[in-house]
């Protein structure tokens, strides 16, 4: 039994115009001790997915269908108090290091101890202090500063404090939501290395949600690429980033400059992701895809399996021949419906 099994999950948001299908039929598994990355552009549903696993969907969000099984238990059917029991103790979260991820009017220590006291009431002051000290040392922070307020820490320090707090109860699963977005590159590197070290010691599995593929490349074993609420492709990191089998992933790769190659034009995929309130029939990427056919516009693709990758494209087996050789050429990407329409938003 995998630690985390998400099956056909549908998470919608209520809006004035009807339900927005933010996550629409997503399935994947996560094994113990494994690191899984989830990448995609803003609005692809990765944050909604993360929030539904942690259990912090806003009032307007709800699980429409599907299941999230953690160690066999379906989280979507649990009552509030039961869910709360699991929160932080089993599944914790590393939020973005924005100033506002920590409550500004309480000290770091107070906030970590709050987590401890909530789930292990009766933990004496001595033991809590030990835990805080241990965690601080683990993340490389001076335990003497545990009584400082968040604003007295630098951005990188605050992020480490968040990690310390996330690990305090030794959870089985940690969700890192954009863990390095608000940091500069140097700090990013430090934090990522720190996370890697800790992982060896702590043995939690991790879900890394980010739009920054380099973060995933450095920390994860497997990765899921999401687009418009669905999975585009999933597989081991080296495969997905080495030889992906979905046009979107290929386009994504080209959008990131490669430092080793000689100067190249940055390539962008014309168009925008579709509306989630009334999503198009068929493959959601069809409008922006150079390989799209009539079939793509009417039929949703099933999973195709290649070399350990799961890819949702009707023509995945033809990518080697038809797309990959031309992927570097900007004109390839101009032969999409979105490009010829002038990239008009739906």
């Amino acid at each position, binding site marked *: 039994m995998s630690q985390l099994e998400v099956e056909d999950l549908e998470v919608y948001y209520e809006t004035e115009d009807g339900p927005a299908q933010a996550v629409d039929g997503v399935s994947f598994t996560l094994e113990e001790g494994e690191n899984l990355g989830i990448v995609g552009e803003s609005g692809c549903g990765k944050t909604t997915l993360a929030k539904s696993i942690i259990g912090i969907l806003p009032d307007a969000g709800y699980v429409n269908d599907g299941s999230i099984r953690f160690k066999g238990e379906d989280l979507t059917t649990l009552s509030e108090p039961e869910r709360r029991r699991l*929160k*932080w103790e089993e599944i*914790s*979260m590393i939020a973005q290091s924005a100033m506002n991820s920590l*409550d*500004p*009017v309480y000290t770091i220590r107070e906030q970590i101890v*709050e*987590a401890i006291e909530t*789930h292990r009431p009766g933990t004496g002051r001595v033991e809590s202090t030990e835990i805080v000290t241990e965690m601080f040392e683990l993340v490389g922070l001076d335990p003497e500063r545990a009584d400082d307020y968040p604003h007295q820490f630098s951005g990188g320090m605050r992020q480490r404090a968040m990690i310390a707090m996330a690990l305090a109860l030794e959870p089985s699963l940690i969700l890192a939501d954009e863990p390095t977005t608000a940091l500069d590159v140097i700090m990013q590197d430090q934090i990522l290395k720190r996370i890697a070290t800790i992982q060896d010691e702590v043995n939690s599995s991790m879900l890394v949600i980010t739009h920054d593929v380099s973060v995933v490349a450095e920390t994860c074993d497997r990765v899921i690429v999401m687009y418009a609420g669905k999975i585009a492709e999933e597989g081991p990191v080296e495969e997905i980033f080495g030889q992906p089998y979905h046009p979107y992933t290929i386009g994504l790769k080209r959008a990131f400059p490669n430092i080793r190659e000689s100067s190249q034009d940055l390539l962008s995929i014309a168009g925008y992701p579709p509306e989630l309130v009334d999503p198009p029939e068929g493959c959601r990427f069809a409008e922006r895809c150079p390989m799209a056919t009539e079939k793509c516009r009417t039929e949703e693709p099933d999973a195709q399996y290649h070399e350990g990758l799961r890819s949702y494209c009707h023509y995945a087996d033809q990518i080697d021949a038809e797309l990959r050789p031309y992927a570097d050429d900007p004109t390839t990407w101009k032969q999409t419906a979105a490009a010829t329409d002038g990239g008009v938003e739906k």
Partner: protein
Amino acid sequence: MGKASFVLRRTLQLVVTLWAVGTVLFGLFRLMPGDPTSYVVSSQMTQEARQRLIESYGLNDPLHVQYIRFLENLVALNFGQSFHSNQPVTDVIATYLPNTLVLMLTAFIIAYVLGITLGVLSGWYRGSRFERTTVVTALTARSVPTFYVGLIVLWIFGATFNVIPMSGMTSLGTGGQNTGFLDMVFTLDFLKHLVAPASVLAFYYMGYPLLIMRSSMLEVLSEDFIDVCRAKGLTERTIMFKHAARNALLPIVTAAAIALGYAVGGSVLIETVFAWPGIGREMVRAVLRRDFPVAQGTFIVLASTIIFLNFAADLAYGYLDPRVTYD
């Protein structure tokens, strides 16, 4: 070090503002039409007696001499004597100020406790009917003049149903000149008189903290740390009060201190409607009868209350918000 110099600078500002207010006051009251001396001297007095009296009040001296004397007196808290009753103004203030304070503070405390709680709840339950009703009620409470609400209350509960007394702070015949303030305050009679004005005032005051607290809550609830609190498995109640409200409270404290200052200044109207013998009502009566010393003295008390409370608000905010640095 920053803190000390901050306090020092604010204190200096306090003194300067007080001085400025006093000076403007001096000018204003000297400019009022109507001869003040006519209240003091009667036409039957001889010219000499009249002159002596005028001199004793110093009303003949050149303006700058009067001003210096005014400033000296101000610092010594000597506000002179009432033209009307010959009592020292400080006595007048001492008689009436406590009445205002009792009324204000009672109403204020009720209003803020209720207002803050309702504000927290309306912010939390945003979009609900409860929220809409409270907001509309709060707005209405602030849109209708307090003295009007007072009139309506007096009419319905006083004149029509006769449940509350029509005026004053105590009924005729209860207590005399020698009843101590505290003795009076704890009588049923006093409370009966207090209920109506305090409720009307509380109804009016409540709107402000309610609306501010609600806005503040809405802002705080959109912050990321609230999500983290939820992820930590804290109960909704804990998040609402320990985290959201605690953060949302910061602007309220300063707002409350400032509002209290204005409440004292605005006491004029309610005291007039309910014939409550307070300092606001006294000030208006003094102005209408050109009783300079009393008008001046009471005004200074009102202004000083505001100034001191604004000062306290500044300090309080620095204390409550750990992020504030003293520049």
